[in-house]
């Protein structure tokens, strides 16, 4: 089973092609990442093109697509989701969503509890608690770092790194998600027969928009 995974929910643009055999053994066929928070739209498809060239594969050979659903800064996040949905539509294959923090957590291979955190801008972080690298406990949240009860657990991710002072803890690697881990996680779940979620963005905040005040009612109108 061949799967293309990518994520644009953090400053990283990361993409990978992974494969599992009939027994579920995972092999990474190609992967590439770069960090440029302002150029997700320019970098993603050329990065995927590079993976195909490197692996000698074609898009037509893919069985699944997995894309990071965030949370993450919205403009970049939508690049991945729009790309994944369009690929799936054109290729006639399923596109699944993977929570970006779950991919970050999976890459740690940790067997003890920890928190994953990514930058949410506006002095906040997106975060979630994990019992181990495969098990998230509760929903992903967005909060100011100082308001988070870290339970003195290890902290991973660039959100933890940015606010190490406030959190009083040194952040652990990895800081940014890697699509190789995302591909492995998605294939593991597919192999286990689990239903993967739809590629729907985790915004966690409402759009910033203010309704204008009510118009003054002192005027006399002839309508």
């Amino acid at each position, binding site marked *: 089973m061949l799967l293309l995974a990518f994520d644009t929910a953090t400053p990283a643009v990361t993409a990978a092609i992974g494969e599992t055999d009939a027994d579920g053994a995972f092999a990474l066929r190609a992967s590439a990442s770069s960090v440029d928070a302002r*150029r997700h*739209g*320019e*970098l*993603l*498809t*050329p990065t*995927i*093109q590079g993976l195909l060239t490197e692996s000698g594969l074609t*898009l037509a050979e893919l069985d699944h697509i997995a894309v990071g659903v965030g949370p993450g800064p*919205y*403009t970049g996040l*939508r*690049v991945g*989701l*729009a*790309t*994944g*949905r*369009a*690929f799936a*539509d*054109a*290729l006639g294959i399923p596109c699944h969503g993977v929570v970006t923090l779950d991919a970050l957590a999976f890459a740690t291979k940790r067997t003890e509890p920890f928190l994953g955190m990514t930058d949410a801008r506006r002095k906040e972080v997106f975060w979630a608690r994990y019992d181990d690298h495969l098990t998230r406990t509760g929903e992903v949240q967005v909060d100011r770092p100082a308001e988070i009860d870290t339970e003195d657990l290890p902290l991973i991710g660039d959100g933890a790194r940015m606010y190490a002072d406030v959190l009083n803890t040194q952040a652990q690697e990895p800081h940014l998600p890697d699509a190789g881990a995302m591909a492995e996680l998605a294939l593991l779940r597919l192999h286990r027969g689990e239903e993967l979620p739809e590629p729907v*963005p985790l*915004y966690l905040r409402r*759009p*910033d*928009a*203010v*309704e*204008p005040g009510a*118009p003054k009612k*002192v*005027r*006399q*109108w*002839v*309508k």
Partner: protein
Amino acid sequence: MSEPLILGIETSCDETGVALVRGCELLGDSVASSVDQHVRFGGVVPEVASRAHLEAMTPTVRRALDQAGVTLADVDAVAVTAGPGLAGALLVGVSAAKAYAMALGKPLYGVNHLVGHVAVDQLEHGPLPKPSIALLVSGGHTSLLLVNDLATGVVSLGDTVDDAAGEAYDKVARLLELPYPGGPPIDAAAQRGDSKAIRFPRGKWGDGTYDFSFSGLKTAVARHVEDAERQGVPLVVADIAAAFQESVVDVLTRKAVDACVEHGVRTLVISGGVAANSALRALAEQRCAEAGIELRVPRPRLCTDNGAMIAALGAEVVKAGLPPSSLDLATDTSLPVGSPLAM
């Protein structure tokens, strides 16, 4: 040999538009609008529009394909709005277009939204005479263009120096307590009003340029409303709407016809959302007839933002043999009109 089938994708503002065009023939055209979600904010909220584009993108592609009775495998090239427009909104369409083009193994063309508004007229009235003058009036743009060739030769003659004409309509509608978007309710109110009842200023009238200004007009309407209020005089909405509209369309049509005369051009195209305005159409028809100019105004559905305009321009760009955009194509929120194709 039949002409190539172009898939056009437009997401520069609040309409997700997808269409299929072959030459000058529109085969399928689907638009999903998020305008209802912006009404309570009195204007387009970029993040709301971007979210809506992502949700509407692939379903709109499907509807356009179904309407055209073709499949993605039939598509020969993908054209997408690269700019100008809202950054986050443009990026959804460009990202999807790149994925479609790459998955189909077909060339990608990032094209100019403004030039698309002119190109769309070919779907209704056939090939555009060369050269033509185009007046683009919408909520985001007010431009006068000399169109030597849609794919390679568009020159900007003038632009608004402040508000776009459609923006002025929205702001004045708000002053008059009429709903958003302001164009249709002001047009409707103006039908019952006397445009000579109040004399509002004509921005940049007779200044020797082809530029426009609507900010002073908006302020003049606001002053008129405030003065009447202070004096306790009832405000006649129909008259204010008619006089405001008269000021807008007077300047627009006069400068457009002047440009035709100066450049010896016999064809004027008026497009963009405001081209649906009845007063603009009426005065343009009258002045073009007097000057012996052929007026071409696409039907309202084609004047507003849609995928058809992008596919129509894509067809011109392919026909001109221009090189496709690369996969690292960037969006350009202020792509100049002189660049029909973004590289």
